[in-house]
């Protein structure tokens, strides 16, 4: 890194850890899913507002994960269904997916796990990518564990690596499928704060069965219930995420959400 070439390199590859793309809305229409011949949901419409976090809250087995997988392109949408980006462009290549399990590769170091995306696209990570991965590990508080193997980390640390890996992909839309539900209460709260900070400005769909989690992180909260399942109107809690866990308004809304879940 000496002389003009180093400067040119820095301009071509800005070291910004999160160069968030412009907010992108997503709209799903006519979604349909059958299980054992019975519809889990059919003719379902759902949309994600660009640049905000939408929480989809529902009991286990209601089909919320399936809906998320549909948007992620991991399941075929079925006849008649459309999944469209707000700007009319293709969704492929603009979505990142984070699951309940961290899905870290046990043979790769923490840093190499953050670099899983480029490796799977056949790209050998260059110095700029490695620097960005390091910066993201720094953001999630794991810079000193970059060389460790995943099995040396706790569950919370592993999910933080998964978050860094998701952020490295730098996609406009981030789909999160109960990403914190396997963690203990305190670790979960910390990760919620961390992800709210790092995902700000992106279009996020967070699927969860925890009303408090939805209330802390969601700009918009939808409840998905019934069989075939329907999606209720958006609840928009006041204040910016991550909302404090002791907020009395949150607790009142939690009762409201539990009521909607039970209906």
């Amino acid at each position: 890194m000496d002389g003009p070439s180093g400067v040119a390199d820095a301009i071509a590859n800005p070291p910004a850890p999160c160069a968030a793309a412009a907010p992108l809305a997503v709209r799903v229409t006519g979604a349909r899913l059958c299980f054992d011949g019975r519809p889990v949901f059919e003719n379902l419409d759902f949309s994600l507002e660009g640049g905000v976090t939408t929480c989809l809250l529902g009991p286990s087995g209601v089909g919320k994960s399936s809906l998320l997988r549909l948007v992620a392109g991991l399941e075929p949408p079925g006849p008649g269904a459309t999944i469209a980006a707000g700007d009319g462009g293709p969704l492929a290549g603009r979505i990142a997916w984070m699951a309940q399990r961290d899905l870290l590769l046990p043979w790769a170091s923490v840093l190499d796990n953050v670099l899983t995306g480029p490796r799977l696209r056949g790209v050998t990570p260059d110095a700029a990518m490695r620097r960005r991965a390091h910066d993201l590990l720094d953001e999630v508080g794991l810079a000193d564990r970059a060389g460790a193997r995943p099995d040396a980390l706790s569950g919370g640390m592993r999910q933080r690596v998964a978050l860094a890996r998701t952020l490295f992909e730098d996609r406009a839309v981030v789909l999160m499928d109960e990403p914190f539900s396997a963690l203990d209460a305190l670790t979960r709260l910390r990760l919620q704060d961390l992800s709210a900070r790092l995902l700000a400005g992106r279009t996020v769909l967070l699927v969860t069965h925890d009303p408090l989690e939805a209330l802390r992180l969601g700009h918009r909260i939808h409840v998905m219930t019934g069989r075939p399942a329907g999606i209720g109107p958006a609840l928009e809690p006041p204040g910016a995420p991550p909302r404090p866990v002791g907020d009395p308004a949150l607790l009142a809304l939690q009762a409201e959400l539990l009521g909607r879940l039970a209906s």
Partner: protein
Amino acid sequence: MRALVTVAVLLAVWQGVVAATGVPRFILPPPGRVATTLWSQWAVIGPHALTTLAEILLGLLLGAALGAAAAMTIAQFAAARRWLLPVLVASQAVPVFALAPILVLWLGYGMASKVAMACLVIFFPVVLAFWDGLRRTEPGWLDLARSMDARPWALLWRLRVPAALPALASGLRMAAAVAPIGAVIGEWVGASRGLGFLMLQANARMQTDMVFAALAVLAVLAVALYTLVDAGLRRALPWIPYDGVKE
């Protein structure tokens, strides 16, 4: 350490049987006699052992490489899977040892036919174990790869192959265990060197002590090979737990 005690007890039983029954030496020599022969005839046994060892190692390398390549081919190409896999599975029913005379006929009395024989018995366990591992990649990882727009070859090389390495390791362990069998069968059918050849020669001359000496060397070779392969694989794959413990 306990294995040594077990071996010592078995040797003592062997010695006891010989002493109690008075069985002639050309039927069953006492272990002490075998040890003496091993010591005094080492100049004869050593070179034969080296030949057999070379056949085993070459067969192991070649068989493992071909087996791994075949498994990756059928994992990656649906056409290869449709055309090759049924043949591969069916060909397992053919007793490979029956092919030994043909291999000697084609490849001669030298080392090539023995390497081919060892290669053949190694090939199938490696292919089937590795292929089994390659097809059972964790579905969550495959979903992650799809969401990251993985390319087919990078997916194979960066995800499916490393994930299948434990299965490949099982295949290689089995290969290390059967490799000596392949080499010795080849030597029995037709050879001018090697432990199998030495055993046949000694057997024909009623030098039973030499047969046992050659057998002992072969056993030590086989055990050493398996132990080395096992230890090497454990070191190479440190993230795999064995009996609940990681390296």
